[in-house]
């Protein structure tokens, strides 16, 4: 590959998003935009209790409601323990869930499901299902769940993979490197921070939804708003007891996911309702159900202790986590592991490390995958602790990071010690432009000046803060993606990928990666993605994997197709393929200057001589996971009278290797940063003593609007990742890790209080200010 020798024609260009024109035209491209004749509506009966045993369920009145076609509950559905986590195999999450259980474990847990001719009939039927509960004592905090004698959530005998069910511990890890206690005791300077993140929700604007219907051959089709179509197929088949070969999963355009759609939630229920009724079924969560019954970020308390020399070089990091996984353990072990595995390698100068923690069941909504996947929680505590350490050392916070962050050519023992629910893979960081990110970000926000001269105006005090973060690019030893590239008889291409574009623009960047290798404009590559009948396997859109893992598969397939094209052209031109190259839609002979248009190549191979299909399928399994890096800077204004915090400016400088689509990459950063600002200032699901969520809607749970969003300035700092497609690594998650600590650190700079519990509401900031004044 002549990576550096020719100007890139597709990679690095802000081409029109391949699905953009139909999206702006409002075409019916989303899951529920398809009209199907005879469609039934499926609805779920939620549990009113946080913890209860179902003694009796009577559905006779519900079934008598006109238009009701099926009612499902524990009495008429097979009991198959599984996990709703859409992860690769072997699945690292405990099998602690069944479709319908005799026990409910949070307010909103699934009790029964109904399919009816109309929404109204379905609603009426839900009201007429008579359930007799024996209410059990509930635990609403991890501390209570761990207390001796606490009610046990998972006392069922058939669950598998729970770390310690009797103590309500879904997962636990303890990974020591060296002797952290001794190193901390011997460190001349130490700092610590304990930070807490509450329940928060992804709030993709499209609620979870699925259509289940039968094709002409009677096979079950699930058209689903999912990030993981291939995992949906595998898991639904097992849970409903159907041969996977009889299931097709199609992911159309989806309205955002951010991890919440890496879950198999509605699909098996819709599948069963369709199978029972022989009719197509539509299921969609209401916004309230999205909040309560889909998935949330894992609420966590993370405690970090740092030990450093007088020179500011870290000697020890201890990180302890208490994670609340809610009623079920989906992603409990892997999110917990990522708190350490995606944070500790950043400061690889520390020789003594310990990462330990537990994920605990409570009778609250179920936590799962959410952009950042534990790293967000880990960086909050780590980067606040680093800010404290810088203060103790009398060092500029940026300088402290400079003395400690990992660099290209370096490694960390953590890469090998912590993987996704098992050991990880040793790797060397091959590209890292964090130093440059720190420099350009600091310059853009005016760090030196603003750090030295704090501004005050009336009640407003201004301050600046910063943080660093990294993430990964796919899961080593787990993720695999495949791509099929086909040349058509007209010389254009079809790219078939299992990769799942959830709005990130991955269809577009995968087309760019192929187009670059083929020397054609992006619009010559038609992308068809995420259909388990028609596209090759891909683990799905999570763990920042698509650009790197799926992109590498596409690049390999394109390389193979390129060689086949050159072979056909060599026959036609009567010379060896060595002297031929692909550029601007043609094969060009370097020796003779002769050109053969790709249309002629396609035509020749299809119809004329030595006929064959020019096509290739290639796969890429993730041998390492190159981290993207980012430096975050923000300026805040704090109203010292009310405690109100305003983010005035937010600068993020990130190294994602080569940005395949720069505007798309910036958009990932900008969106991730605003979600992080939401975590820092607004977002928290609140619960009554009964365990009921009291703000499951956009009026009471505040998602930042355009008026709340500050100026977010995203700067792409290039590096070139030698193992990435055209030098690329990931970008989608890293941006969410910085806002919590950067804003907390900026508040400290402004008014001298450490905000360690998110969100930093006016009430909490005002209370901290009062406390400090005392």
């Amino acid at each position: 590959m002549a990576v550096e020798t020719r100007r890139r024609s597709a990679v690095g260009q802000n081409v029109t998003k391949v699905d953009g024109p139909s999206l702006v035209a409002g075409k019916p491209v989303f899951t529920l935009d398809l009209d199907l004749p005879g469609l039934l509506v499926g609805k779920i009966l939620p549990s009113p209790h946080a913890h209860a045993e179902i003694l009796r369920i009577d559905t006779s009145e519900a079934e008598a409601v006109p238009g009701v076609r099926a009612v499902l509950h524990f009495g008429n559905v097979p009991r198959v323990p599984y996990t709703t986590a859409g992860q690769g195999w072997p699945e690292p999450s405990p099998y602690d869930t069944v479709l319908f259980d005799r026990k409910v474990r949070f307010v909103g847990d699934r009790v029964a499901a109904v399919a009816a001719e109309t929404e109204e009939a379905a609603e009426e039927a839900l009201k007429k299902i008579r359930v007799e509960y024996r209410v059990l004592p509930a635990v609403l905090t991890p501390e209570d769940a761990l207390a001796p004698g606490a009610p046990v959530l998972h006392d069922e005998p058939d669950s598998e993979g729970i770390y310690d069910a009797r103590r309500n511990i879904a997962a636990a890890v303890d990974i020591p490197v060296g002797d952290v206690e001794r190193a901390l005791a011997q460190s001349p300077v130490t700092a610590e921070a304990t930070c807490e993140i509450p329940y928060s929700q992804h709030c993709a604007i499209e609620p979870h939804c699925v259509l289940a219907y039968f094709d002409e051959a009677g096979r079950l089709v699930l058209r689903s708003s999912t990030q993981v179509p291939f995992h949906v197929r595998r898991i639904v088949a097992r849970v409903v007891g159907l041969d996977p070969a009889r299931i097709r999963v199609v992911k159309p355009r989806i309205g955002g996911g951010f991890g919440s759609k890496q879950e198999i939630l509605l699909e098996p229920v819709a599948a069963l309702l369709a199978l029972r009724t022989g009719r197509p079924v539509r299921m969609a969560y209401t916004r309230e159900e999205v909040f309560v019954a889909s998935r949330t970020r894992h609420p966590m308390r993370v405690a970090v202790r740092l030990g450093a020399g007088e020179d500011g070089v870290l000697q020890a990091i201890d990180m302890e986590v208490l994670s609340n996984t809610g009623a079920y353990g989906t992603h409990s072990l892997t999110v917990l592991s990522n708190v350490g595995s995606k944070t500790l390698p950043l400061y690889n100068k520390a020789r003594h490390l310990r990462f330990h923690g537990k994920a605990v069941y409570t009778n609250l909504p179920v936590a799962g995958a959410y952009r950042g996947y534990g790293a967000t929680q880990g960086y909050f505590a780590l980067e606040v602790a680093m800010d404290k350490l810088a203060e103790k050392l009398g060092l500029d916070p940026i300088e402290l990071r400079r003395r400690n962050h990992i660099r290209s050519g370096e490694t960390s023992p953590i890469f090998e010690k912590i993987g996704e629910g098992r050991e990880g893979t040793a790797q060397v960081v091959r590209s890292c432009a964090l130093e440059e990110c720190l420099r350009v970000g600091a310059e853009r926000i005016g760090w030196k000046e603003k750090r030295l001269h704090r501004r005050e105006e009336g009640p407003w005090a201004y301050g600046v803060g910063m943080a660093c973060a990294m993430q990964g690019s796919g899961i080593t030893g787990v993720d695999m993606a495949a791509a099929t590239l086909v040349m058509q008889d007209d010389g254009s291409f079809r790219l078939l990928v299992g990769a799942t574009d959830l709005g990130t623009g991955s269809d577009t960047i995968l087309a760019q990666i192929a187009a670059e290798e083929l020397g054609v404009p992006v619009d010559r590559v038609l992308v068809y993605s995420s259909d388990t009948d028609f596209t090759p396997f891909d683990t799905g859109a999570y763990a920042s994997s698509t650009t790197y893992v799926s992109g590498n598969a596409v690049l390999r397939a394109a390389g193979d197709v390129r060689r086949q094209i050159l072979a056909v052209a060599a026959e036609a031109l009567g010379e060896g393929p060595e002297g031929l190259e692909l550029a601007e839609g043609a094969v060009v002979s370097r020796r003779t200057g002769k050109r053969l248009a790709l249309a002629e190549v396609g035509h020749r191979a299809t119809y004329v001589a030595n006929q064959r299909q020019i096509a290739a399928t290639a796969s890429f399994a993730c041998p390492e996971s190159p981290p993207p890096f980012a430096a975050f800077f923000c300026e805040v204004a704090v109203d010292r009278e009310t405690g109100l915090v305003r983010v005035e400016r937010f600068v993020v400088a990130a190294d994602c290797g080569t940005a395949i689509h720069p505007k798309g990459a910036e958009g990932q950063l900008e969106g991730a940063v605003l979600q992080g600002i939401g975590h820092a200032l607004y977002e928290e699901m609140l619960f009554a003593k009964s365990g009921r969520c009291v703000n499951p809607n956009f009026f009471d749970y505040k998602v930042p609007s355009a008026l709340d969003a500050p100026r977010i300035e995203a700067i792409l700092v290039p590096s070139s990742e030698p193992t990435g497609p055209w030098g690329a690594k990931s970008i989608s998650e890293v941006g969410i890790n910085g806002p919590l600590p950067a804003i907390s650190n900026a508040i400290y700079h402004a008014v001298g209080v450490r905000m360690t519990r998110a969100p930093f509401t006016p009430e909490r900031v005002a209370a901290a200010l009062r406390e400090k004044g005392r």
Partner: protein
Amino acid sequence: MKIAFELNGAPQYLDVGPGEPLVALLRRLGMKSVKEGCDTGDCGACTVLLDGRAVRSCLMVAPQVQGRRVTTVEALGTVDDPHPLQRAFLQAGAVQCGFCTPGMLLVAHELLSRNDHPSPDEVREAIAGNLCRCTGYVKIVDAVLLAAQWKREGRWR
């Protein structure tokens, strides 16, 4: 009950339920650009123009459009011939998942119909009732400002 109204320039006369949400009616009539994100009027994905003014179609019932003019994104432009505002969204990178996009386009359209020289803050205010979880709004604001510039330059049809 029967109602008569104009949908994207075409007269309609049809049966609706007295409590049928406007969003349900419009989707039933094939206007799938009208999205349901919350059902409480908080997300703006169901925005349509009613006599040129942006309204939440999930908060209205079908009979309320009797005698009025409803516009959805389907009337703005097509895949092959997008409206300049739609082109601006594409060029600025304002579309990620695209679920909020129809609503955003319509509130932006309403803004630009009365103010073709909005400040960034005026754009932010105009789109503040429409939630986007993907973009951080940066490129949506850019897109509306770009479309406004094109409008001032006479590049709108």
